């Protein structure tokens, strides 16, 4: 390979390395262990719309997340959480966040069994096709991701701005606010530093100095020899004085221009609890099987109707997925389509008041494998989720079910963990 060609290849690889990995598109939720998704939380009724916008236009994420009573004992108990859009960086700008009807700029307190309805409004900031999820970060556990949707953000004619109203009534554009001052202020200090360095490196040499410093004491500046002269002292006094003068000037500027300043705010709160679920059913899990070859989960549960009206099992919610006992219309309403599937219930139909039924729930869906929702090679072979019962005439209950899974077929695994 000629030298020219080699240099060309190096240049191409360098450019490719800079350009190619510019954005990440997935969020690694499949990498989380199954118990992190199944036993901790369940997301349902998630909506992300619209799916196509221009820069500056809003996208609204709504939904509900429930902290399950089956929260694993291997994790810290859930106490503090933060609901956030999970997106590849600030390609959207978050405009509003409400949890159980209350504005929620920061973190909030959670508990096992807690139900948190969220609404987040964000505006498109960077053109592209972005995968958008809601997520709940729980202290000590990490960010647990809900179902996602692709959102197309088209460029806009107008430049993106994000107006924020200060308490004094002034409106600022958060995009790049004061960034030029930050740069020029830092650069001014940098210039004095460069002057300091140039003074020493241009007027003196390292090699000859070393020959002398090795022969005198460490505390000697030896002006008689010429290592550090009175002239050096004078110029360093000037530069140090200039540095302090710059600082005084900067403080005067900041103090007069921004007379009111606060420390960063931390307003954590306990959201108002929602209306409790109706008590419609008592559910007893009786076991589940998992066929790794066909991606089929079969669960058997005993459900007793303890209400005064017939009830119907409508959905099974597990982690970020929802499986619907209904047709395409019902599935379309259940959440982002990539995370919604069919739930077959046998026998299907209402359960009469006081009646107990042995139900077989069958889910055959590749998402169970793709999102690694079923623990087949883990220390705990359990899954958990919510059974959504609806009552004739209105009302619903989400019953938590924790069930052990017996694999009936394994895919070959030649290297542990892969």
């Amino acid at each position: 390979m000629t030298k020219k060609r080699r240099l060309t290849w190096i240049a191409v690889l360098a450019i490719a390395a800079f350009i190619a990995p510019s954005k990440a598109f997935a969020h690694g939720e499949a990498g989380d262990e199954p118990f992190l998704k199944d036993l901790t939380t369940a997301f349902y009724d998630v909506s992300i719309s619209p799916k196509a916008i221009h820069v500056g236009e809003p996208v609204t994420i709504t939904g509900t997340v429930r902290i399950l009573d089956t929260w694993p004992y291997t994790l810290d108990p859930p106490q503090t959480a933060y609901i956030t859009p999970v997106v590849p960086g600030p390609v959207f700008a978050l405009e509003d966040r409400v949890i159980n009807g209350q504005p929620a700029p920061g973190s909030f307190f959670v508990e096992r069994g807690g139900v948190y309805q969220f609404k987040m409004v964000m505006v498109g900031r960077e053109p592209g096709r972005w995968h958008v999820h809601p997520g709940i970060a729980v202290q000590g556990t990490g960010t647990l991701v809900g179902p996602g949707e692709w959102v197309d953000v088209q460029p806009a004619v107008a430049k993106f701005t994000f107006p924020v109203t200060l308490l004094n009534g002034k409106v600022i554009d958060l995009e790049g606010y004061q960034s030029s001052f930050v740069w020029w202020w830092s650069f001014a200090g940098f210039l004095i530093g460069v002057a300091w360095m140039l003074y020493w490196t241009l007027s003196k040499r390292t090699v000859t100095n070393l020959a002398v410093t090795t022969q005198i004491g460490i505390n000697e500046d030896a002006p008689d020899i010429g290592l550090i002269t009175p002239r050096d002292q004078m110029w360093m006094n000037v530069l140090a004085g200039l540095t302090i003068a710059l600082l005084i000037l900067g403080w005067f500027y900041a103090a007069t221009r921004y007379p009111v300043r606060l420390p960063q705010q931390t307003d954590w709160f306990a959201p108002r609890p929602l209306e409790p679920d109706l008590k419609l059913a008592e559910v007893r899990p009786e076991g589940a099987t998992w066929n790794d070859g066909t991606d089929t989960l079969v669960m058997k549960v005993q459900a007793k109707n303890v209400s005064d009206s017939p009830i119907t099992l409508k959905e099974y919610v597990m982690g970020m997925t929802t499986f619907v006992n209904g047709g395409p219309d019902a599935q379309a309403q259940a959440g982002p389509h990539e995370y919604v599937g069919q739930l077959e219930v046998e026998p299907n139909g209402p359960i009469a008041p006081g009646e107990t039924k042995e139900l077989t729930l069958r889910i055959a869906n590749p998402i169970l494998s793709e999102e690694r929702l079923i623990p087949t090679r883990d220390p705990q072979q359990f899954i958990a989720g919510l059974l959504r019962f609806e009552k004739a005439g209105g009302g619903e209950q989400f019953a938590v079910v924790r069930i052990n899974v017996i694999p009936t077929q394994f895919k070959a695994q030649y290297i542990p963990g892969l």
Partner: protein
Amino acid sequence: MAAGTTTAGERQRRLELRALLNKKYKWIDRKWDLVFWITAIFVVGGAADITKQLFAGDWDFWTDWKDPQWWPVITAFATIIIPSALQYIQWVAWRFPTGATYTAVCFFMCAWVGRYFQWHVAESYPLSFVWPISIVGAAIILDWILLKTRSFILTSLFGGPIWALLVWAFNYVPLAAYLQPAHFMNHVLTVADVQGIVYIRSQTPEYLRHIERGALRSFLGETQYVSLVFGGTVAVAGYWIGQFIGRYLAVWPIRRYIKTL
């Protein structure tokens, strides 16, 4: 008579040293200096940036982490280590009071290149949210203290607290704009808080911020100044960690190697 001879001998020796200082070399004169100072930018800037990232990563990354309680303490400690090491090396070797300033200038260039290309261009965070702190002003004063005292002990005792004060003070000037109160999501928040909410960090939830949450109320609410005093103390410790690096991981092995030649 003996004292007079010694004085004369010493005077002669110092004249020889003066001549040695001004001696011209053909190959290893200015060219060597040019190569050295420029190539060392990347090593020294990288070392300073990595050390800062290890100890004070997020505090230096986001405006909403630059709080009155933790930021002055952690940052002062994290940023003085490498300047101290370089101060020892450059003073001992060449009697240059430049180690801290050289580190700060290299660190400035590396940090801004990183923030601009990695965080602004590639990740589209506004620079107003992710700007790096500058330690140049504090470094100049630290070098000036060494120049005046000619003592590492005095430089650590006076320079450590002054370092903590100046690193905070120089960077508080640009931070002030982001501490203004704003009305957002029906709350009073600082502009920095608003930046932290608006520019989404999915894997850096708000509760991860190690910032003042009202725990130092017993000092008349003057958290800032209590932290600066503590920051000055830990900066002295950081200075001596840097001295250890300079003395025993840099100069001592070189001296040992030269003796074997």
